[in-house]
């Protein structure tokens, strides 16, 4: 019985909460039990933001993820803060454009993705978060790639549906990235 706890953290404005929503919506499409919990308050822009996502076959207890199976970090303060929280045997996904150091833990698997640079090179500079999600899907299978478009279209607000293709492109780029 899978009970996968995901923690995504970075600067406000990097799309950390949105990345969590994509996983949550996809999980719901797959008829899993879901919770999505954002940090909230003044850190919305510029400060640190994080969100807890639980994707499970059994009912979700506490929605607060303090020991993630999967950690996604998009800035150094978040990596410093949460590296030690990851469950032994879990994995961490690190945006290596913005985080220069390597992990100290040896009991977790760590993937380094230059997501911010890749996003810039692809001409979609705001979608590093989706590149990270693509890689997470590839490595963990927490949700399937199949049917992602539907989940994504539910996550993207009505007025931003024109960004659907760009989001998909970013996810695919992350999915194909070999580290």
């Amino acid at each position, binding site marked *: 019985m899978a009970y996968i706890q995901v923690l995504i953290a970075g600067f406000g404005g990097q799309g950390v909460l949105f990345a969590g929503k994509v996983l949550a*919506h996809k999980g719901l499409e797959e008829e899993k*039990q879901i919770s*999505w919990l954002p940090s909230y308050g003044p850190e919305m822009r510029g400060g640190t933001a994080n969100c807890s996502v639980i994707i499970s076959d059994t009912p979700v*207890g*506490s*929605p607060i993820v303090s020991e993630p199976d999967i950690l996604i970090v998009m800035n150094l303060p978040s990596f410093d803060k949460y590296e030690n929280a990851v469950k032994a045997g879990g994995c961490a996904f690190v945006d290596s454009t913005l985080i220069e150091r390597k992990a100290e833990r040896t009991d977790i698997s760590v993937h380094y993705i230059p997501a911010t640079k890749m996003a810039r090179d692809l001409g979609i500079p705001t979608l590093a978060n989706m590149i990270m999600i693509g890689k997470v899907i590839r490595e963990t299978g927490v949700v399937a790639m199949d049917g992602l478009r539907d989940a994504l279209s539910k996550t993207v607000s009505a007025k931003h549906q024109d960004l659907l293709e760009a989001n998909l492109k970013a996810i695919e780029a992350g999915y194909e990235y070999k580290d």
Partner: protein
Amino acid sequence: MAKVLMKGNEAIAEAAIRSGCRHYFGYPITPQTEIAAYMAKRMPKIGGTFLQAESEISAINMVYGVSSAGCRVMTSSSSPGVSLKQEGISYLAGCDLPALIVNVQRGGPGLGGIQPSQSDYFQATKGGGHGDYRLIVLAPASVQEMADLTAKAFDLADKYRMPAMLLADGTIGQMMEPVELPEDMRTTVYEKPWAVTGTENKREHNIVNSLYLVPEQLEKKNIERYEKYKTVEKNEVMYEEYMTDDADVCVVAFGIAARVSKNAITAARAKGIKAGLIRPITLWPFPKDVIARTAEHVKGFVSVELSMGQMIEDIRLAEGCKKPVTLCSRVGGMIPSPEEVLKAIEDMEGGAF
């Protein structure tokens, strides 16, 4: 019916609309602004009222006006704002008017913080405003319950002609979970012959009023109201029991604290400790009987709260001081971890309290 992902706060708003509420008054405060934002978008499209009032005090008095007219109405706020509403809540109670007040709690006292809290338990369940009165207080622990208990609150408020409060917290308000919303969440339609809808020159005038200058009359009113409260206590208690049958240690927790406690109970059971949970869904009326029954077979209770220990007083009253009751709590916007709750369960099991 398809499940959709919704924030707890949005689920309250949509459920209110589907429960026939067409009037919302509020004032901005974190962490419940999604409710007002949702209403601001939806109400104009369905012929309802969304009005951002000049203050919490005005908002609750606008609620008082709409309720006097016999229509379903609500306001929402967070702790400091709910303090401001207390005057109006006392008047609603004193006039026997139904209404829904949502409190998505944050840390206090004073301006406090904006992170989740349950430290308005006393205020919600013991009065809050002046005078002898009660509120029906419902405590959701999931996004689905944010919706379901909103509908329930409107129903109970109309049924008993008294204000009801949904006592949530920042976590449940902000989190998203799958939720299923029936198209129409109204249960019963209640006649309101007391409403001030205009006499149409066909009946004596109706008066909505809480002033009784003759003490005998005011005493009678209060006694009658408390008879009604007895009926509510008899009929409307709601709670969830989780693994209590064989429990040696019983956790009592509501809202987000109950969610965390379930993780701890799973962990305790894995260690061979028979732990269970009573989750009050109505905080008033408080589920006294089940706690009294459970006291017969457990070693003790652990009250898990996001406060310095408020509900614990009601647990002690309910179990009649027969068994030890300990407090496991974090405050100021902090939430106890499952490990902290597990430790409290283990301490109770081992007699180390």
